[in-house]
């Protein structure tokens, strides 16, 4: 055991045994996930088709900005659903958890935090979030406990949870709508105030690009440490450039969405800015909920790919018995996954209550289905064992794109549902065909 807990010293020569062959093909050299590329392609196709059908109103900075904000809450929750589904479980209760935690946050804020700390005290926002996330994690942990330790199937436990927590959301305030009072908390919902503006958006973009470069260098160093074959330099450059270009493009889009002229003037006056004669243009930039969603996506990707916990989640999904025999505490991992899902539902609740400026007991109704659909469209296999966070987030964007595209085309809600339902089944069918053909 002693030599296994610490990393072995770096061998001075290439590892014995099979010499790792350098990749020869173009795609192989870039180490691209073809599946992910396919999803980006599908998203691009949807956008182009809608732009055509909706007379050029889809691919506008304004619509894309709105799309990003509207996707945030579902995207945040879909990252947790990936882990749940990878472990061969399901969580039908996320919409209701969103409802009840949103309610808890609004009531806690209005009835306890405001009177204690006063209007717009920064502590109010922080404590609201802590309370909401703790409540969500506790609810999820309770589900996880019943599933893992009492052996009740997740489908049933979370179906029960769907009813229980929706009822609880009503019970918290006897069905009343609770308005949010804290302006800092409202920033989480986006809007003109909840966006970071052009300058900060560029700062974020610069940090993102540096992070991409740093990650590539770090990966290269790691491989050098063990004398593994390296990615060709041109491939590194291509990957880094594509990543940075995507960041720059997204930043250009969100910065191109500006406040209407009269609002911009009023905003500038209230902020005491001098208005140049040609008028003032104020960019939205990245919306706060989008940044929250991206941050959640990065953290969740890190958890799934770089930590023991993430490795165990996948191993359990691949072969629960093998994981158990390898000494993994599968029950504890199950409980943790559901607790994490609950916490993410609470973050989703913070975003969507902040966006609506109030909490209602019906909030998040049917969200569980959108979240599951996003994860599944994003390539998470319901058979367990495979799925990616980034895929699920793209899946959330696909779902939202369909809906907002149809709204722009003035399709009635019932017909929207018909289309979304069909697309979900179609997407999974395509994925099934792909898996059979190429795996």
């Amino acid at each position, binding site marked *: 055991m002693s030599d296994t807990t610490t990393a072995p010293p770096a061998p001075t020569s290439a590892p014995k*045994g099979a010499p790792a062959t350098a990749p020869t093909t173009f795609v192989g050299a870039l180490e691209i996930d073809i599946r992910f590329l396919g999803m980006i392609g599908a998203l691009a196709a949807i956008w182009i088709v809608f732009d055509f059908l909706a007379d050029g109103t889809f691919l506008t900075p304004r619509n894309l900005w709105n799309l990003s904000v509207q996707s945030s809450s579902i995207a945040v929750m879909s990252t947790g659903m990936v882990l749940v589904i990878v472990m061969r479980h399901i969580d039908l209760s996320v919409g209701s958890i969103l409802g009840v935690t949103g309610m808890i946050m609004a009531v806690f804020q209005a009835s306890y935090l405001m009177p204690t700390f006063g209007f717009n005290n920064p502590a109010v926002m922080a404590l609201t979030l802590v309370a909401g996330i703790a409540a969500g994690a506790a609810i999820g942990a309770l589900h996880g406990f019943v599933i893992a330790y009492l052996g009740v199937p997740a489908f049933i436990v979370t179906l029960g949870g769907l009813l229980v927590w929706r009822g609880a959301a009503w019970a918290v305030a006897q069905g009343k709508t609770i308005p949010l009072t804290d302006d800092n908390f409202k920033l989480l919902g986006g809007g003109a105030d909840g966006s970071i503006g052009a300058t900060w958006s560029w700062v974020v973009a610069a940090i993102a690009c540096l992070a991409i470069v740093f990650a590539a260098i770090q990966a290269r160093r790691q491989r050098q440490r063990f004398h*593994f074959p390296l990615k060709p330099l041109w491939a590194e450059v291509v990957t880094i450039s594509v990543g940075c270009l995507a960041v720059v493009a997204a930043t250009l889009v969100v910065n191109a969405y500006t406040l209407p002229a009269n609002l911009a003037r009023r905003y500038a006056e209230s902020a005491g800015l001098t208005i140049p004669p040609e008028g003032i243009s104020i960019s939205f930039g990245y919306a706060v909920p989008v940044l929250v969603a991206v941050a959640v996506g990065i953290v969740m990707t890190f958890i799934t790919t770089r*930590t023991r916990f993430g490795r165990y989640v996948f191993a359990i999904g691949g*072969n629960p018995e093998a*994981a*158990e*025999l390898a000494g*993994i505490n599968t029950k504890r991992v199950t409980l943790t996954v559901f607790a994490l899902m609950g916490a993410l539902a609470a973050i989703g609740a913070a975003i969507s209550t902040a966006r609506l400026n109030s909490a209602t007991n019906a909030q998040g109704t049917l969200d569980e289905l959108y979240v599951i659909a996003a994860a599944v469209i994003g390539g998470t296999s319901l058979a367990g064992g495979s799925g990616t966070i980034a895929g699920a987030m793209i899946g959330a964007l696909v779902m939202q794109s369909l809906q907002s595209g149809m709204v722009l085309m003035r399709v009635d809600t019932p017909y929207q549902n018909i289309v979304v339902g069909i697309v979900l089944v179609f997407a999974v069918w395509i994925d099934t065909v792909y898996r059979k053909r190429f795996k």
Partner: protein
Amino acid sequence: MNNLASSPVATPSARTGTPLVEMRDIRIAFGGVHAVDGVSVDLYPGEVVGLLGHNGAGKSTLIKILAGAYRPDSGEIRINGAKADIGNPRDAKRYGIETIYQTLALADNVDAAANLFLGRELMTPWGTLDDVAMEAATREVMGRLNPNFRKFKEPVRGLSGGQRQSVAIARAIHFNAKILIMDEPTAALGPQETAQVAELIKHLKAEGIGIFLISHDIHDVFDLADRVSVMKNGKLVGTASTADVTKDEVLGMIILGKSPPGAVAGPGASN
């Protein structure tokens, strides 16, 4: 095969001192069925003990108790003479017990390195998975076991039966096992790979590792084992040194539960 000549040489000298493993009067029942009913077996350093019996005789259940997958209803396990408390697979590994399961127990959706280190991952100083170090170690150990192995980046789902087997074996021997349990190790293998596993067993034995070799087929184990213990209907028929009994006698133990003169009869013997 000619290893019959070589194995008895080690047998008498090997079985002295404290046994590596003693399982005493082990019992376990599942819903009224006595899967293992008062079985006692032991294992000495550098010894190969074949555990034989029909499918459903209780061999795998007995061995899963030693591996920590099941907790016995009663009975005692001693490792190196000291009473051992094995409550889960993690405990068993702490005692140096490694198991190669019949099903191989691999997570199909992750790669060879992830399987090899499953539950015992190498970590970087920052507490993250050190995948590169794990891959390097996997290349090293697989290079010894199966030099033709190339699919380090692929989920083990895409591996052949023999390749999967070598991943399972690599996992068991990489962590300096003192006691190795092999449940039908050659069931899924071709003749050449079977011969490789036989070579490996002899090699490990020479290093002083005690090996339980489980099989329903006497021919798989008779030549490799120093002793055989035969089970039938959850009970021990008897234990014999392979030098003292013939294959036919052992077959009689398996099929009829009849303990021959060269064997120490157990409670399950019919005569």
